Each structure stands twice: as C-alpha cells, then as structure tokens.
C-alpha cells in the first residue's frame, strides 16, 4: 500500500534522481576511461621534454597535481617568410574539403574574405609522427629557408630570430588528418611512431607573408588549432617530477632529463605508461 505524503513533504523521487545523476555520471566516466585503456593499444610512443613540457610548480603552489603539456609542430602554420614556398604543407584546399570545409569559392574572388571568415573550426582526427621522415624533411626545409632569408635580407636585424633553429622544437609533427580515425590508421599503420588524436582544424585565406616571386594569388590554408595537450601524470610516476632539477635542459641535453612512455587507447586518449628519469 502506498504511504501518503505528509503535508509539505517532498517526494523522495527527486532525491533519488540527484543521487542517481552523480553515480551514473561517475560510472560513465570510469567506464570510458577503462574502455580506452583495456582495449587494444592504438599507439605507443616515448617522448622527451621537447614534446612533453613539465611546468614546475613550487611546493607552495595551489595545484599539487603533475601535468605534462604535449607540444607539437604543425608544418602548415609555421614557416619563415621567404620567397620559396613551404614544401611540407598538406592541409590545403583539397584536404580541407575532404574534412568538411566548404571551399567552393575561388580564393581570389572579392567575396572570398567574408565567405571564408564564416568557416568555423571543425573537429577531426589528426595523425602526428614522432621523429620520422616528415620531421627530417621539416628540419632540412627550415635550414634551407634560413639560408635563403640570410641571402635575401640585407639588414641582419630583420632576420627572423629562430630561423633554422629546430633543435629544441618538438619532433611530434602533424602529417595527416581525416574524419575517420580508422581510415587514418590504415594510412599510417606504424603504431610506434604515429599517434592519432582528436583535433580541431581551422582554415583561413593565406596571402603569402613572404615575398613570393612572381606574386601569387591568395590560397586556402588550414592549421591544427587544438589537440588534447594536458597529460595527467599519476602516482607513482608523478613523484619524480617533484625534483626541482627535473626541468633542466641545456645545449648538451635538449631532450631534457626524462622520457615518458605514452599509450593511446581505443578512444585515442593517452595515459602515462612509464617514466624514465635520466641522471646527468
């Protein structure tokens, strides 16, 4: 028999609903994490300080957690302003169209500016290769661009300061993107050097910042705008990062004093599977 509610008494349904929301949300979060880690490993890479920055915090800081920041190189968005075009651009008009961007309008037309201004960043999957062929090509093209700018620029004060300096730069370089992570993996099957992650790609009209000779019309260019960069380091691995000398990096050791083994699971989300600290 149903118990009658006293006057003013609120039914328990809403209380049960509030508790259920908390429990279900936690259950889903844990299941998501477990599913990512217990499924087949999508990729495993070992990265150094160049790719994973640790921002040291003093013991008095309000946040005691240890977080590494994934640092990557996008050949589409960063190239010194020289006459020769960047040879490693791959996020071009055809690729952007394949990723869902509307690239119908001729970039030279007078309405192109307002048309492409309306294109919002899109959610895709991107492939990043660690210390592979693309990275070596990037180093070589940067060195060539540095030499070219030196010869073109009469005033040394106006030479781009970081020209050709790639020895501190992240070797994790964007090489491809697709809407489907499985298709992307099929194109880049090396799981020891290529990671596939959710990414945000933006596009814009590029008016050639250098001095192209002969002058060229504007073109459509994409860039990797965002990927998941915060990597939580759990205990016991995090304890080693509390050493105040952990972030030391000099000309003789650009890779820093730690190596982090990252695994990417079924949901293309990473976790720290091991940390090696290198004593000098």
């Amino acid at each position, binding site marked *: 028999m149903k118990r009658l509610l006293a006057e003013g008494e609120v039914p328990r349904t809403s209380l049960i609903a509030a508790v259920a929301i908390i429990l279900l*949300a*936690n259950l889903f*979060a844990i299941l998501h994490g477990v599913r990512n880690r217990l499924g087949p490993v999508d990729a495993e890479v070992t990265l150094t300080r160049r790719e994973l920055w640790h921002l040291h915090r003093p013991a008095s800081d309000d946040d005691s957690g240890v977080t590494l920041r994934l640092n990557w190189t996008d050949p589409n968005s960063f190239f010194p302003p020289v006459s020769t075009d960047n040879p490693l651009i791959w996020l071009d008009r055809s690729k952007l169209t394949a990723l869902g961007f509307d690239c119908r309008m001729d970039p030279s037309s007078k309405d192109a500016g307002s048309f492409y201004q309306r294109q919002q*960043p*899109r959610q895709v999957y991107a492939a990043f290769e660690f210390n592979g062929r693309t990275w070596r090509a990037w180093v070589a093209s940067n060195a060539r661009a540095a030499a070219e700018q030196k010869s073109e620029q009469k005033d040394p004060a106006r030479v781009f300061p970081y020209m050709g300096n790639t020895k501190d730069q992240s070797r994790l370089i964007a090489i491809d993107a697709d809407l489907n992570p499985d298709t992307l993996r099929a194109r880049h099957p090396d799981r020891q050097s290529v990671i596939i992650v959710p990414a945000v790609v933006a596009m814009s009209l590029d008016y050639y910042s250098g001095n192209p000779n002969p002058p060229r019309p504007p073109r459509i260019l994409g860039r990797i705008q965002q990927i998941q960069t915060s990597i939580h380091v759990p205990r016991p691995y995090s304890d080693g990062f509390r050493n105040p000398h952990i972030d030391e990096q000099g000309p003789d050791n650009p890779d820093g004093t730690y190596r982090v083994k990252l695994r990417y699971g079924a*949901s293309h989300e990473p976790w720290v599977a091991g940390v090696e600290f290198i004593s000098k």
Partner: protein
Amino acid sequence: MIPSGSNRTSEEDRVAAQQAADRIRALRQELASDEVQSVLALTPDQQIRFDEWSRARLAALAQQFDVDTSTSQKRVSWAMRIASTLGALALCAAVVLFFNRYWGYLDTPVQLAIVALTPLVLLAGAEFTSRRERTRYFTGLLSLVALASFILNLVVAGSVFNVTSTERALLPWGAFAAVLAYRYGLRLLLAAGLLLLIGYAAATATATMGYEWFRFYDRPEHLLLLGVIVFALPFMRRHLRNPDFPPVYRLVGALTFFIAILSLAEWGATSYLPWTSENIERFYEVFGLCLASGAIWLGIVRNWNGIVNTGSAFFLIFLFTRLYHWWWDWMPRYLFFAVIGTLGILLVLAFKHLRGQMSGDEKAVTP
C-alpha cells in the same frame, strides 16, 4: 488561504504566507494613518480586536513559515540571502582549492573516490538542513557547494583519464542543478541549471555539425531558439509547488535570447542567414529593437516585472548601439553624448506618459 504546514513547508505555502503577512502589515499601517482614520474610524473595541487579531496572525505566520513581519526583518532577510550566496561561492572556491592543493599526493582510486563522495555528502547535508529549517539559507548554501563539487568531480575524472574535452558533462551538471532547484525551491540553482542545459543543447548541436563544441557561442541563432524554448517552458508546465520559478525561466530565456540577438547585431558573420554581414547586423538591430519593445509591452500586460526591466535594458542597448554606429565617427564626442543625454530625457518623458496612461486605465476598470 494559507494551508497549515508541517515543519517542511512547500515554497508555494511560504510565498502565500509572505504575501498574507505583507497585506496584514500594510493594512495595519494604513489604518493607523490620519487620512484613513478620517474616513474609516474604528471604534476602540474594534481597534483592540483588530490589533490583537493582526498581531496573533503575524506571529502565527512567523512561527509557522518563518516569514518577515516587518520592514527591518525584510532587510535582514535580504542580507541573509546575500551572505548565504557569497558564503556558498566562497565555500565552492575553498572545496576546489583544497582538493587541488592535495590531490597530487593521492593515488588515482583515492582521488576518484573523494571527488565522487564529496557531492553525495554535501547533498546529504542539504537534505538534512532542509528538514530542519523553514527558510532555505543553509540548504541553498549546501546545494550550491554540492553542485560545485559535482562539477569538480567530473573535471577531475576527465583529467585523470585524459578524456578529450566534450560537451557531455554539461548535461549531468545541468540536470543535477535543476533537480536540486526543484527539490529545495532554489531559484539560483534553477538559473544555473537552465544555463548549463542551454549550453549543453547549443554545444551538442555545434558538435553534431562537426564543429568544435566549445565554440557553441559562435552560432548565436542556436541560443536564440533555446532562449525562446526556455521562455515558453512555464506555459507548458504549471509550477504549483514553486510559484516563483516561472519568472526565473522567463528571465533566463529572455537574457539568452537578447544576448544572442545583440551578438548577431554586432557580428553578423556568425549567422545562418545568407546575406552580407552588414545586412545581417542591421536586420538583427531592428529585430532586437522591435522585440525589446514587444517584451516591455508583454511584461506590462502580464505584470512580469523582470521582463519589463530586461526589455527596457535591451531596448536602450540596441538603441544606443545603433546610434553609436551612426554617429560616433563623424559627430564631435560632446555632441554625441549631448544627443544621448537628450534621448535619455525623452525616453523618461515617454515612460512617464505611459505610466500615467496605465494609471488612467486602472481607474477606468475600477467599478
């Protein structure tokens, strides 16, 4: 009529009790004034009986529903409301900072257990206080901290598992806030819940179309539609237990709606309309002015003070924005501000005229 409540009185009873107390207090003041006494003089016996009855009734209402029976009490109640809200916000910050300060020294299962248990414990605290207090100061405070803890809970879980940023967490946060709001009759929690759910719906639409979910504000027309839906919800569901909730729906809906229009009037490139940005901006400026006027009219007709104020505020914002675009560049600054000041005076005169007419209308319908 005020129902006789148990210790746990519903919000409806409390609102009705407060209205009854306000009426009795106003009647006592009016009857004591010389002007009323000159036309309606009570005999000493009637005066004594009225005083005894009104005092007893106010005391009974105060005891049963904890309502304010004097102007000073009302002021103190407002101070308590502000203090409990500020206290709740400070406690939210304390919970988050305390956890951040020590979580790095804990193992992952302990971290997850602590953040999952904290909102449950605070919810139990809110339930406990709601059974013991007729006003909602401590219940509101604990509920707000419970919501903040639940937000921290999912943020930490997402961070521990390095989950890719997603809009999905907005749904349980919004649902939790709404459930607490309805259970304990808390308007602030309802407003927070509605905003979270609006954010979730807009972000889901954005993500479904393949865009980055966090930039849901880049499509203000989604928010425009959601604002209308939230505004209309009280028409579909009667709030018998929480009669003070429909104004919250209307205010949240109207603010979402007008902010979306204002955003489109300033930057038309984010619109779905297939026109040039400039035409879209002009369209939404005029649309905003018309709808703000409509909101003022609707608020007056339906006696919705919040909508009258919101409509008036946005009417002025749209008007001054338009004037700024027209005149700022070519008019001397002193002249621009002089014109704005003159317009302000004209608007005051127009509102005064409208107010006078409304007073006349009310006289006309009085038998």
